[in-house]
């Protein structure tokens, strides 16, 4: 899939399983590429400084802050955003658990929380609720849904064992 050029530098990127051939400016962040050029606004901008975690996406399966990553440095990589987690109508287990446990209110930090949780579970270092709290502390939820976020992730973590 080809997009109109936004800058001089060629870039190939798989976003949610689709191969994209892009031309971007050297200063465009992965976050702005997703939100402004690819219209994937599920990934959120909460600070643009790597301080809030709202922009968390998975690059080759690892969670990163998309606002601190330049798009040109992701050449050849595979990016998964919140839009790529569900299969059609079937939600990812974490998405379903977030709804069931009311693990969000305004919903703005939610895509970042869920992508971060996917990455955290893949890392495999969390054993219980205290680990989840610690390892999810890069994602600020100003609505304060933390106890429910921990419950939702804990449920999925337990089911995966």
């Amino acid at each position: 899939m080809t997009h109109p050029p936004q800058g001089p530098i060629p870039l190939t990127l798989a976003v949610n399983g689709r191969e994209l051939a892009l031309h971007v400016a050297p200063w465009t962040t992965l976050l702005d590429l997703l939100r402004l050029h690819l219209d994937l606004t599920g990934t959120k901008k909460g600070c643009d400084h790597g301080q809030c975690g709202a922009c968390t996406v998975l690059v080759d399966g690892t969670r990163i802050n998309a606002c601190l990553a330049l798009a040109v440095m992701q050449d050849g990589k595979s990016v998964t955003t919140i839009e790529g987690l569900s299969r059609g109508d079937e939600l990812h287990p974490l998405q379903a658990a977030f709804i069931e446990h009311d693990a969000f209110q305004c919903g703005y930090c939610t895509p970042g929380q869920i992508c971060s949780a996917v990455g955290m579970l893949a890392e495999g270092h969390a054993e219980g609720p205290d680990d989840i709290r610690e390892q999810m502390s890069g994602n600020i939820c100003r609505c304060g849904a933390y106890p429910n976020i921990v419950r939702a992730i804990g449920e999925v973590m337990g089911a995966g064992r």
Partner: protein
Amino acid sequence: MIPIPRMPGLLEGPTTQVGKPVSRVDGRLKVTGAARYAGEHAIPGLLHGYVVSSAIAKGRVTRIDTGKAMAVPGVVHILTHENRPDLAWLDRKWKDQDAPKGSPLRPLYDANVSHSLQPVALVVAESFEAARLAARLVEVAYEAEPHQTSLLMNRDITFTPGKDKGGFEPPPAPRGDADAALAAAEVSVDLEFTQAAEYHNPIEMHASTVEYHPDGSLTIHDKTQGVLNCQSWVCGVFNLPKSSVRVLSPFVGGAFGSGLRPQHQLFLAVLAALALKRSVRVELSRPQMFSFGHRPETWQRVALGASRDGTLTALVHEAVQESSQAENYVEIVVNWSGQQYRCDNVRLDYRLSRLDVHTPLDQRAPGAATGVPALEVAMDELAWKLGMDPIQLRLKNYAEADPNTGKPFSSKELRACFRQGAERFGWPDHLPPPRSMRDGRELVGWGMAAGVWDAMQNPASAKATLGANGKLSIATASSDIGTGTYTVLAQVAAEVLGLETADVAVEIGDSSLPQAPIQGGSWTVSSVGSAVKAACDQLAKRLHALARDAEGSPLAGVGSVRFADGHVVAQDDPSRRMPIQQVMRAAGLPVLEEKALSVPYALGRLRHTLGTHSAVFVEVRVDAELGTVRVTRVVSAIAAGRIINPKTAGSQILGAVVWGVGMALEEEAMTDHTLGRVMNHDLAEYHVPVSADIPDIDVVFVEEHDEVVNALGAKGVGEIGIVGVPAAISNAIFHATGVRVRDLPITVDKIRAGLAALP
């Protein structure tokens, strides 16, 4: 007194939809990233605006050089006070529904600078990156004047505000002679409290996307708690007819008060769109989220006198808050102290001090989250001095009626909050002495406090439309800032018409929908929920009439019906029933629509004081050497009338407790008074709680029946959850360590200083 008539249309139990822990109906959109917020609407040819913020706190812009900025490829225009189009000049045109007395800020109006980070220019470019780069290249020269930004340096230069803002009541007149009674009291405490300014910091930064249509009309996607407020404000400032301006905010990424007033990104985006006749988006940066509205810095004094048995004999509560030079931002800080406890000698005093800052703005439980914790810490200190259990001291002085007015409460289950909260927490009959519980290197402490907030209601309208397929649509110009409005409105509608919540679609956040108030003050369920109920009640009446009159109807002649399982059912004979869809088919009606206006129950409200109440219990663990605090347990018992949805209401309380933890331990805007600017203006240095700071939180909703507050008997839960929390944490820290810190937030340095000073 003559008894007042029962409120008409009161919702009777048992209920089937109301009270159910329904998952958010907008949940799927939020967890899949499909919900679009204000800055996320893709529009062909969209321009991006970036704000240039003032580098000084007070003075004048003497020169703006845009040469270098205009040379950046993609830059289209730079708006400043020198080239801005004509704007309204009457103050009243710049007023919005939440504006206090005074002159609202007019961005780019003239060369004057009244506070740090005030917008002085807007760069508009074809790309976000170009606008951001060019904004850094705009050269602004200033003539700075001396400024004052420290409340504590100016706390003697005050004035007493009047009724300067909607919803604000000046303190009641003194009763008795509090100062004499204090001097004569057998036991007394006399304490000073300070509290840092706090910033709302919703995770969605303020953004407005203005879609410019060829006919000059605008569709505005704005981050706001009130689409109608923004619509009328834009129309006033830019002299546009309402028919040309539509404001949308179906999803709002948190606000907590920051979206109550139209903010300057909206103004600048509209200004640019009209000037360039193009669609424009302006999104603030995180540091610029410190350029408007905040919970004001506050100084307080609370003095309590009591007899040895714990009877309060004197209560003095004084507060001084900051406001800006141009507006009198006021909030109710001290009045609660005259309402919470019975006391014959009370003096309450509230003043403002003007500083060179932007106007403060309502933030979650404005006033109560500041004033009530000071009172509740003073009560704790008094309890220790008396050697009394803090719950017993509160029960000893329990106010059965509102001491400020003499009126009864419409309902007040605070006693049950104390009892059930204490039970869940395991509060002991006799609290061990301070600094007596230790676990390894940690000192353990328990603290409790009470809370109070008003149960308010505003007029609101809603439209209910029933389709031939039996599905119901609800429409109102309210918003859902994460509170669960979509979900609870669907539940209320489903309840009235005997439907499933899933059969109700709710449309909100659109200025073209029926009138609703700005979303704040915990009044949305009360106001908009009542309007939805009224509209559905009218639909029910029409369905009843149509069912009775249908040919061969099983309900012919039936005078009283109820609605259940999608049927109209005879009240006395469940076998006589008719599906709603059949009623509409029989009447040949493809849709049935009703609109209703709901207003507060004036007589009931005149005769009562209406409020929500809480009791909060906290356990903290404080590192004996480092002074670091962990909140390890919280029980929050809430009395707020009928709870429409325990799941979403429970989340409101959880979130508010988290806010209370932030206020008690973390949140602090630190101003460099030499520059007159908040130094820690980002989320790395302005600390808010993260997951590791928050334990499991136990929320208890105490049963409370209210027949005055509104037809739903529901009081609203957005604010009450925060009110007691900072005091309960502060009291627990004292119990753990023996150290009192009366300066919020209670950070490590203050605890360590206290630990070092212990005998």
